[in-house]
């Protein structure tokens, strides 16, 4: 593989005739590193021998022959065979074997990827995706039912509930999320108040910033932000944890030992999240309001006392309850989707990654869809 820059002419040298055949002597190192010169030599020789008839290639002068050299030799033979009989002499059995393989490979039709017709492929993909979505929805519903049954069974025998697991998952999903949820909610509060103040100042209605921040944070954004963060943080973690256990066949082992994976893996996570998310949402709302108050003070000189007084008159406590009422539902959805995708992991490690991504996307999607439904529901109740 040394990049010897041998001149092209050195590889194939005319060596007179043998009977009616023209003789070409092959020389030098027919290897990958000399490919440029080799291919030129082959081209040149094939062109130079046009109309020559029979050709005999004496190959004993080849010092080294690798796959690429064999391919070039095969190519030369094929080009010359179009003109007349070709004989390649002087190869030892190993080289002859390589040349035979090269001759087969050299003239075969191109490999190519499996044929794809683009338009049909798009239609096919869309169809498959639609069916997959239907299957998936049914599957998820079946899973929800299964969890509900297990939950009911466990409710009859609460001793089976794994208390320490629930506490552990509450810590992981709730307590450990406090810094990030708090910071992001505070910033959202700041942004809302800042933008609101800018608009409301034009009408001289600066103080209504408090209404804007209070209602939007308490009713919608607090719980929605928290749910989205938790879906990204904990929903994905559920999928990855359970998925890894699937890959290690731990879930199968549980089943064969007569343990119910839904009871052991899914219920504690779901119960923990259902308990933790409302608390987190409340905390997020408080931090959001704090952010709003800070921004109001900075931009509008509204003191904290004024902010709180206005908040009391503008926002009834029901607004907060409407917001928090959604949290357990979102929590259940996030936990169910996370666990469902985790249990769907099969065999390979790359399906853990794929399904983790999917679990986050699906749970955020469902959270927002449910939020929209809740809005319609509450509006029709006049809340």
């Amino acid at each position, binding site marked *: *593989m040394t990049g010897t820059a041998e001149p092209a002419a050195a590889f194939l040298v005319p060596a007179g005739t043998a009977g009616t055949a023209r003789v070409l002597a092959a020389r030098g*190192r027919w*290897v*990958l*590193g000399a*490919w*440029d010169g080799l*291919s030129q030599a082959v081209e040149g020789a094939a062109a130079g021998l046009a109309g020559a008839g029979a050709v005999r290639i004496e190959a004993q002068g080849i*010092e*080294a*022959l*690798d*796959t*690429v050299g*064999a*391919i*070039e030799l*095969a190519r030369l033979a094929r080009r010359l065979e179009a003109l007349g009989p070709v004989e390649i002499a002087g190869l030892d059995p*190993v*080289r002859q*074997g*390589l040349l035979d*393989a*090269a001759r*087969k*490979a*050299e003239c*075969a039709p*191109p*490999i*190519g*990827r*499996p044929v794809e017709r683009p338009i049909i492929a798009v239609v096919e993909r869309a169809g498959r995706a639609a069916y997959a979505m239907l299957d998936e929805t049914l599957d998820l519903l079946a899973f929800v039912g299964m969890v509900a049954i297990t939950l009911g069974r466990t409710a009859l025998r609460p001793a089976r509930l794994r208390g320490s697991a629930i506490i552990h998952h509450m810590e992981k999903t709730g307590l450990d999320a406090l810094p990030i949820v708090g910071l992001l909610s505070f910033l959202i509060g700041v942004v809302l108040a800042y933008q609101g103040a800018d608009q409301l100042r034009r009408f001289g209605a600066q103080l209504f910033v408090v209404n804007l921040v209070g209602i939007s944070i308490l009713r919608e954004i607090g719980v929605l932000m928290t749910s989205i963060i938790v879906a990204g943080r904990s929903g994905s973690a559920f999928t990855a944890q359970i998925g890894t256990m699937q890959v290690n066949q731990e879930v199968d082992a549980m089943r064969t030992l007569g343990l119910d994976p839904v009871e052991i893996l899914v219920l504690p996570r779901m119960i923990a999240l259902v308990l933790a998310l409302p608390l987190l949402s409340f905390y997020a709302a408080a931090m959001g309001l704090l952010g709003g108050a800070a921004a109001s003070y900075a931009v509008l000189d509204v003191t904290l006392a004024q902010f709180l007084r206005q908040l009391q008159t503008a926002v009834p406590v029901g607004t907060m309850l409407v917001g928090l009422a959604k949290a357990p539902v979102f929590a259940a959805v996030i936990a169910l989707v996370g666990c469902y995708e985790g249990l769907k992991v099969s065999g390979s490690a*790359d399906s853990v990654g794929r399904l983790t991504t999917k679990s986050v996307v699906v749970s955020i999607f469902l959270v927002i869809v449910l939020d929209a439904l809740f809005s319609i529901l509450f509006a029709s109740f006049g809340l």
Partner: protein
Amino acid sequence: MDAQPPYSGDETVIRVRGLRTRFGPQVIHDGLDLDVRRGEVLGVVGGSGTGKSVLLKEILGLIRPAAGSIEVLGHDITALSEPARVALQRRWGVLFQDGALFSSMTVAENVAVPLREHTDLDNATIEAAVRIKIRMAGLPEDSCSKKPSQLSGGMRKRAGLARALALDPEILFLDEPTAGLDPIGAAAFDELVGGLQRSLGLTVFMVTHDLDSLITVCDRIAALVDRRVRTGTVAEMLTESHPWIRNYFHGPRGRAAIDAQEAR
């Protein structure tokens, strides 16, 4: 292949001296010496955790040893500039445990990767070379356009082998080539490796647990015991007094493999 000096029997292509490997407080190799001669098949055995795969990765330059020198084809692997390392990498081929094929590419594209990366061959030549390698590895013609996920474990290994052979390497590294194959597939793979080694004049460095592979294809065996290696032919290994080696070759599985070889 022919692009290398002829088999001389005593030229050393891999020379490991005083190798020391540590993970935290845990010493894996200590003062390990190993020579691999051109044209031989060396089987590396050892209990779990004795650092067989670590040794392989150190020779390949994927892990840096704590001390000692590793020379491959005359180059010190631990003190190699980037271009020199790339040049050296072209002279060896590696087959990882499950083939390590790139999952987004077809088998043919996988085998073509080293050729496209490291050479300026035209497409027709690359394709012909790919076809030769795939045939050498004993894969059927129609597997060229398949994705790795469509292949069985044994076929994935063969495809990985075809990729490892793409640049006509001088040294072939195999990491547990027969693990996870059924006995028939494993025997066929052993035969394939042995055949390729003979026809291409390869030097083969094989990490394995498979006693049958050791006995059928390996010229010498390196056993990792007590953080060092002991090398020798199968016959020499049978007379070793070290307890682990005795257990390994005189245990029921070792005996069975040796008896089977003798009966052949």
